[in-house]
């Protein structure tokens, strides 16, 4: 902290002094650690950041306009491409919003399937986050490869269930597209039971590492009041000490049936963000174990609903879930037609980037990369 204050007390860009001495670097769009085509216009004093302006839109494809011109179901495969690291939670959020709009009931078994897939996705996202985060810190990909190794197992599960490894297009309004294949639950159980061991290994690789501690502790701290005001959600907010989890608050689906807790930290720095994700994975495994044990027989989709011909009464609905990266919401307005009149995505990555400049000011260029990594963005979602 003292370091940051010391540097911030120096004449900076805001005071107008030393402006000719600043080094203006365009970090991105082609940069190894901007997680895609993201760009930050950074002004550096030496290696100290005095201003940072994010630039978006290199992956912009106007997802919302596309969705307004196709039927409701047609947007489902497009939601896979929002946050392409966790397609099933995107499917879940969109299905939830449409179900709110149409007042659709979801059968119990479908809810269980949704929760199992969503939690598996959360585990997958957080695991891959560890790998990318270490990559940003400069480790030569070992953690990333271990994460990918485990992700492949999850992809195999998803492929068997949904037919695709990443672009799942699985949820339907009022349920899921197909039932669990025979033996899938058993495979999922094997995976979930073996995952604790992997997490232990990952923790001993990462958590106590002194270099990591020195690099991440007290970096990118923001008070929880400012975080709430800036609309930051997900592990970032919980790391700052706000136990706000939509799975508990909204209890959408059947999350109120499961016994799990919300881990939250105190400092809200990059290290806490990483640790919260570790603890969250353990909690997700708890949910998964319960859900896999209790999953009932029954319909996997509400038989009354025809997803392909879905039409809603005029009106609007906002549905949100706790995505792995934060609050993922869909705002839909219907005019009674077959296409949505307005389709808006509230992407967690996009809003979580609001405070990126505040977090980076006064720190090193190397810290910018770490902070951006700890926010955990996916550009498919930021740019839409």
């Amino acid at each position: 902290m003292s370091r940051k204050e010391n540097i911030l007390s120096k004449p900076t860009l805001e005071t107008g002094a030393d402006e000719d001495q600043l080094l203006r670097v365009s970090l991105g769009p082609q940069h190894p650690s901007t997680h895609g085509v993201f760009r930050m216009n950074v002004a550096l004093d030496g290696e100290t950041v005095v201003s940072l302006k994010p630039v978006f839109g290199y992956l912009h494809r106007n997802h919302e306009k596309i969705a307004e011109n196709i039927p409701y179901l047609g947007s489902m495969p497009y939601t896979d491409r929002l946050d392409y690291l966790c397609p099933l939670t995107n499917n879940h959020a969109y299905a939830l919003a449409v179900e709110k709009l149409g007042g659709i009931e979801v059968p119990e078994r479908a809810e269980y399937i949704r929760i199992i897939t969503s939690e598996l996705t959360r585990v997958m996202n957080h695991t891959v986050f560890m790998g990318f985060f270490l990559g940003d810190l400069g480790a030569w990909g070992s953690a990333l490869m271990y994460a990918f190794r485990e992700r492949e197992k999850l992809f195999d599960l998803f492929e068997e269930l949904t037919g695709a490894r990443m672009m799942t297009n699985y949820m339907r309004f009022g349920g899921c597209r197909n039932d669990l294949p025979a033996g899938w639950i058993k495979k999922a159980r094997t995976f979930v039971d073996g995952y604790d061991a992997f997490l232990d290994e990952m923790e001993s690789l990462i958590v106590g590492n002194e270099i990591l501690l020195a690099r991440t502790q007290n970096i990118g701290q923001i008070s929880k009041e400012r975080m709430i005001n800036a609309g930051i959600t997900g592990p970032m907010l919980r790391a700052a000490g706000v136990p706000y989890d939509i799975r508990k608050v909204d209890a959408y689906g059947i999350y109120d049936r499961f016994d799990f807790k919300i881990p939250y930290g105190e400092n809200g720095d990059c290290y806490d963000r990483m640790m919260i994700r570790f603890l969250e994975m353990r909690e997700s495994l708890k949910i998964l174990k319960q859900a896999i044990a209790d999953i009932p027989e029954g319909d996997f989709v509400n038989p009354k609903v025809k997803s392909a011909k879905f039409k809603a009464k005029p009106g609007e609905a906002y549905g949100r879930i706790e995505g792995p990266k934060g609050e993922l919401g869909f705002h839909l307005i219907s005019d009674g037609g077959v296409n949505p009149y307005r389709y808006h995505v509230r992407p967690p990555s996009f809003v979580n980037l609001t405070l990126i400049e505040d977090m980076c000011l006064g720190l090193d260029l190397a810290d910018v990369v770490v902070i951006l990594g700890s926010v955990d963005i996916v550009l498919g979602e930021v740019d839409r």
Partner: protein
Amino acid sequence: MNFLANQVDLSNAVDAPAIWTTLEALPQLPNRLVEWVGFQMNAPAWLATLLGMLVSAAVVVGVFLTCFALVSLVERKTLARIQNRYGPNRVGPWGLFQPVADGIKMLTKEDIVPDKAEKLLHLIAPIMIVIPAVLALGVLPYGKEWVPVNLELGLLFFFAVGAMTELSVFIAGWASGSKFPMLGSLRAISQMVSYELPLLISAIGVIMMTGSMSLPSIVEHQSQYNFGFISNWNIFTPWGLVGGIVFFIACIAEANRCPFDLPEGESEIVAGHMTEYSGFKYALFFMGEYLGLFAISGLFITLFLGGWSAPFAGLEFVPSWLWFFGKLVCVIMTMLWIRGTWMRVRMDQLMRFCWLFLIPLSLLTIPAAGIWRFCGDGFLAGLLGWGVTIPFLIIPYIIITVILNRRLAPATRQYHFAE
């Protein structure tokens, strides 16, 4: 039985030593050939000397270029295995021709020079980075009789030449006319200059013990054995252990390897000073970096790991240069292991680590080496040496870590669980 015994005896007494001695002399073969030819043709003495020097240089360059190719392959394969992959295994058996394929690719790539670059300096920098590395390799003793250039002040020459690398890195960064290379070269300058200090200081203990700056005599000094079998390597003494560790860490930093690979820190400044290079110039940087790595690791082996000497008394029959290269492989593998595991430190941490930890520690090795020298040889003297030097090293070490670097200590973190 008798027959068998005879055979064993034969192989032990006659065959094996013959092979080993032949192998021992193998690196000298080109030199001997040139001498022989010169003798046959009655060449003048100066010509013979010149030719001999050229041939020695050619041998060193040839050997280490082969090493470069092999190590670049081994590095990729080792890192791959650490990461549960196969690594390159498509070109030739076990991917052995991968370096050749890489070389062809590098040579045929377009050479891009940025518009804003200083064209001449941009061209010179990659050439300049190879020269000091080759020069430094020239003074190392690789075997009992394999010393390409036997300088009286070899160590000093090594450091002097090694400092040239910084210059070429800076030229590369500045001449590129781009921002990431500039940042990278500035990082490189500050890092290399800082880490040269612990490197030099921890070598002083070795010079004190040997009483010479000639690298072959430093190895000679270490090639004796205590109690008949434990080798007299400097790393096996208290001051040498501390000095060796400090030297090794500084080596990694000098070679820009992980976790001190800030000058080319990929996730931060793309590729540092090499960002604007492509094709053959990039390959030259790559080569210079690896040759520099061999040189600095070779120096570490020479100073602390006994150079070409065998670890135990009974193993001297193995050719000395094999020991050297075996140790080189071990040192480089350790570096790869570290690279596969740890992450990069930040610039200020790097500097603080150097100035607040490595330099105080390396300074301690000088008086510790003095004490060790006073205690003399022999079992009791050795015991006394250990008894005196260890507290002398440990107490300041604790002071350094606890008091000087307290701010580096990570905080305990509490995590809560809400229902």
